[in-house]
């Protein structure tokens, strides 16, 4: 059994072992603590020179990583909570994302910024957000969000080989989860043959699906949903991309053109998120085949409340998704 956390830890170790240009930076990442979410646990003991604990200077150390990346190193930076990435926005948008195109140079430039995102732990308005919408649509940034159906460690290993800056989103609720593979999944799981795969899940491999459900990242409601829908004989084609900052994966339109009905779920609060663009791409690709308007579910359009009961209601949850599915099917 491998957990999401275990996979990240393992692959980080391997990365540092095989490539002496890889290094890891962030706040409180040294042993014995090993980072707020333990992803770097054990790392500084093995690689004391390449695991660098930083002052609380998010803008500054992302800038330092930028300088290192331009000089041929491959920094993997941890932002303790994804909410703090606001402080690095300038170094990401006006520096990292621009270097290659602005200098028109075939730079060898590799930088991964890892960050735990998402709610569900009662951490309140400034420690629970999914802020990827800040960077979606900014040219030359890769945004990755492995789910438990992906192998996050493998993706991390590919991410650091990717040219240009990569934002790597880890939903905090996933760390303790066991990874789901075709072997141990109660539902059919397929991964596309890409470095940042598209996962496809269904609760019925025999029948044509009734509805295409598209989501990414956390999505811990997914098994229960598949189960519940199966009981109602509603067959879902679930698509879980792992690479976000690009137009809809072609498979999404293929699925949608078969089902004609699409629900997109994302955890970020408010409109103007990932789902809007995916919906745009789908209607653009296959308007005539839509039998119902595409629906996007996102967290409520307000801050994330600290109190647990309200936080649960704020986030997309099983009930909201079910209801939306019925709505779209009717």
């Amino acid at each position, binding site marked *: 059994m491998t957990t999401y956390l275990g996979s990240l830890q393992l692959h980080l170790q391997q990365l540092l072992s095989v490539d002496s240009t890889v290094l890891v930076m962030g*706040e*409180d990442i*040294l042993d*014995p*603590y090993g980072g*707020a979410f333990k992803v770097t646990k054990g790392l500084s003991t093995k690689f004391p020179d390449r695991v660098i*604990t*930083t*002052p*609380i*200077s*998010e*803008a*500054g150390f992302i800038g330092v990583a930028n300088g290192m990346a331009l000089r041929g190193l491959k920094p993997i930076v941890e932002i303790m909570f994804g*909410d*703090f990435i606001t*402080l690095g926005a300038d170094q990401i948008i006006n520096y990292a994302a621009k270097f290659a195109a602005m200098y028109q140079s075939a730079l060898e430039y590799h930088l991964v910024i890892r960050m735990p995102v998402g709610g569900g*732990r*009662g*951490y*309140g*308005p*400034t*420690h629970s957000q999914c802020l990827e919408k800040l960077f979606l649509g900014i040219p030359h940034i890769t945004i990755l969000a492995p789910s438990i159906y992906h192998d996050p460690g493998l993706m991390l290993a590919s991410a650091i080989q990717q040219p240009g800056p990569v934002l790597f989103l880890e939903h905090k609720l996933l760390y303790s989860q066991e990874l789901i593979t075709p072997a141990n999944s109660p539902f059919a799981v397929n991964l596309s043959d890409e470095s940042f795969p598209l996962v496809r899940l269904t609760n019925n491999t025999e029948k044509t699906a009734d509805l295409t459900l598209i989501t990414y990242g956390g999505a811990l409601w997914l098994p229960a949903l598949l189960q519940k829908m199966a009981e109602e004989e509603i067959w879902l084609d679930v698509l879980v991309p792992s690479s976000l900052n690009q137009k809809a994966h072609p498979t999404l339109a293929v699925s949608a053109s078969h089902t004609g009905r699409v629900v997109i779920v994302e955890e970020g609060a*408010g409109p103007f998120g990932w789902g809007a663009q995916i919906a745009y791409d789908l209607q653009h690709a296959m308007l005539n085949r839509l039998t119902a308007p595409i629906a996007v579910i996102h967290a*409520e*359009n*307000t*801050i994330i*409340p*600290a*109190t*647990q*009961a*309200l936080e649960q*209601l704020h986030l997309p949850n099983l009930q909201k998704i079910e209801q939306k599915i019925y709505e779209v099917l009717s």
Partner: protein
Amino acid sequence: MQSVPALEWHLYQQMYLIRRTEETLLDLFSQGLLFGTVHTCIGQEAIAVGVVNAIDKSKDVIWSNHRGHGHFLAYCDNIEGLIAEVMGKETGVCRGIGGSQHLHYNNFYTNGILGGTVACAVGSAMAEKKKNSGAITVVFLGDGAMGEGIVYESLNMASLWKLPVLFVLEHNQYAQTTPTSLAHTGDLSNRPKAFGIETREIKADNVISVNRLAQECVHKVRTQQKPLFITMHTYRFAPHSKGDDVRPAAEIETAKRSDPLTHMRWALAQINERRVASIENEVDMRIIEAVETVKQQLVLAPEMFFAGRQP
């Protein structure tokens, strides 16, 4: 029997109240009655109490941080409002929405993002100066937060514009698990000096001395209308939040020998042990009652909270 000014009893009462309230919060956390994060200031109470009792609570402004319960209680003594907030109840000062790190009450503000509060504090000082209210602003920050660039932008503006703001650095030698030596170079007090800001420094284990210094500084900031920066050397006895302590046990034990609470208790007990006990007893009762009351309270009704959503 030597006479002791009322102030000293008051300061002890507040320190004790903060200590016991936070211990209670940690208990509630362990019992699973409280969710999220709690950062306690156990060991550092002399700062909160000493400084906050030096300001004019009717008008001065306070910016606190993630470790803000002590500042809050010293400011408004609202145990129930705090416990309810941390427990996520509608009677919390922010109706349970902000939680431990996001408190606001009258002129008291916090935010869970380090550093930015310092700029806001400079802004509130500027506003009060423009309004001629006579109010000053106090901002508490940790040694770790001194890593944020916005702190230096703020020191510069406060000094440049001669604003009545008192910076209080709670230097507890660690940021989460990181000792200062892995995060900073040089003496942190030199940094405000480089921006032309007058500085003071104190070991904050005696609430009376802290309060005396704070009074002097508050007076200076208010009358001279310019910033001042105090470095308070301290130590937290509890983990950063819960169970994330990697400091040597011996170090913690040594530090506990200068527990500001124990010391003052000892001194006051020499004078009037019964009074000490009665103060403590009263506080204990208030906390127990507050917890019992809060337990009965409700979470804010969803329709109330979500009514504030954007369309």
